[in-house]
């Protein structure tokens, strides 16, 4: 678990460093999904950084493509490319496009960026595995804001219809989106995805709801999803905190995409260092 925590801390640190240096990118979403992503890239995914096009590999689709920077940091840490390449993020000709581009960076299994589409592509991949009698699994990370796109639910119906129990979807349920709805206090904002567990159950998914920052729960959830083959696609609802790990970013919609000042950057790095010393 300590290794996982350290891997997740490094993802968060990388996200902050890159966004600070490149003056571009999203922060809140990448930080909220960092722990699940750490588990996927450190433990779960059957992938080989030396053979990113290995046909039997597990597939990962980042449907909430705007959180790409966290994925890139995880891939760099896993050895897909040199860490320094992270500092080309969002530049012209960079392999690390603002939103994942499968034509540029080996290891990206699907181009995303326009919300709602990634889960459908993951459904296609899971269907493909079934048709070709292959054992690879397909993981898709979607957002709660993203779930406002109707296509998410189109994909869900087909996943159920074709009994895609090799599909493991994760909802990064961080309760915020870029702007969202204003609260009763006329200050806070929210992405009210009311009772997603009931919705996904109604769509025929085998649903687990976990604390998306608790590695023991994350591990249990993926263990269950891997071993429970009941002809139902899996949904892991990861309840998370947008901006998780940096006090002044947590639960602040304004940090959906924002660049830290020098002082904010220093504080963020210190807070993350503190996490590892706990």
């Amino acid at each position, binding site marked *: 678990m300590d290794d996982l925590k350290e891997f997740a801390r490094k993802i968060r640190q990388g996200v902050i460093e890159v966004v600070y240096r490149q003056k571009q990118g999203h922060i809140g979403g990448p930080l909220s999904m960092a722990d699940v992503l750490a588990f996927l890239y450190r433990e779960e995914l059957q992938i080989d950084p030396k053979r990113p096009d290995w*046909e039997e590999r597990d597939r990962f689709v980042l449907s909430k493509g705007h959180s790409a920077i966290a994925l890139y940091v995880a891939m760099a840490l896993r050895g897909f490319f040199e860490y320094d390449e992270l500092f080309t993020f969002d530049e012209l000709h960079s392999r690390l496009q603002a939103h994942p581009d499968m034509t540029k960076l080996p290891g990206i299994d699907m181009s995303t960026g326009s919300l709602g589409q990634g889960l459908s592509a993951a459904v296609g991949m899971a*269907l493909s595995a079934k048709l070709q009698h292959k054992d690879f699994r397909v993981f898709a990370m979607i957002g709660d804001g993203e779930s406002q796109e109707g296509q998410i639910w189109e994909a869900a*119906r087909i996943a159920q219809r074709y009994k895609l129990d090799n599909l493991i979807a994760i909802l990064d349920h961080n309760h915020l989106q870029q702007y969202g709805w204003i609260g009763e206090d006329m200050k806070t904002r929210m992405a009210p995805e009311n009772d997603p567990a009931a919705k996904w159950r109604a769509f025929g998914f085998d649903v687990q709801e976990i604390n998306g920052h608790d590695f023991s729960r994350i591990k249990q959830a993926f263990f269950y999803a891997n071993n429970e083959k009941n002809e139902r696609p899996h949904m892991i609802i990861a309840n998370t905190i947008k901006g998780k790990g940096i006090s002044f970013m947590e639960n602040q919609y304004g940090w959906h995409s924002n660049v830290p000042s020098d002082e904010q950057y220093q504080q963020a790095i210190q807070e993350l260092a503190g996490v590892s010393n706990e």
Partner: protein
Amino acid sequence: MNKTKSMRNAFGENLANMAFNDEKIVALDGDLGNSTRLSYVEEKKRSAFLQMGIAEQNMVSVAAGLAATGMKPWACSFGAFMTRRAYDQIVVQVDQPNLNVKLVGAYAGLLTSNTGKSHHSLEDIALMQTLPNMTVIAPGDAREVVRAMEAIASFDGPVYLRLSRDETLDFLPGTDKEFEIGKGQLIEKGEKIAVLATGSMSSRVYKAIEQLKDYGIQLTFAHIPTIKPLDKELILSLAKTHSHFITVEEHFIRSGFGASIAQLTSEHHPLFVKKIGIEDTYSQCGKDADLLSYHCLSTSQLLENIRFIYEEVQHE
């Protein structure tokens, strides 16, 4: 070879055979299989038929996921729904990643058997030919559909295949031969005016060209089934040897087939290009003959229109 004049029957039978012989080929249906004849795939090989329901956006993205993992998906819906409804998915997940997804727009254009404005696709050529990696093909008859599908299947990349519901189209000369993507067919040679047509209009235009001979008028006629990439060599050679082009399509003339021809010639060998097609107006329901007549696209109207242009050119 099958002698059917029905593009959809030819398409369904051929795709069923292709799927039967290649386990990577799958057909994705948007709940129109019994109209588009994708049902033939299900009848011949059930496992190759994937019902995606009435959800075109998901259908296109699922096709992208299939293609990204080694399958060869053919997604089919009415042209209007395929291109308009799923355009963002086509751009982001099919065309930009250059995935081997075949998109079939059945019932494309104006002739859709009494469905009207919502089901007519009069902008699908414009939408699809704009995309950098997309190949756009509109066969002229059922025989050519089969030949084109062979070429499309062996081509690795996104293709939009535009099919007509019109089942009366006579075979054009030469459409039984091997289909080469990006090649047009020079069918008649004449002087001054070259008429270029695509898709379901080619057969009608050819008839008009033949009938014009009775008036002592011999015009050049080329059938251009590949709208993108255009047969630059053929079109520019015609531009150099003629003073006028007439283009005919069952599509909005703004940004369609004729506009693409005019764009090409304007950059290399400018000449007068008269575009015949659907003007700035929406269509409505009606029998094919009534719709063609309303939009001045029937064979007799095409003949009169071309003859009128010919007379004008003679007096220039």
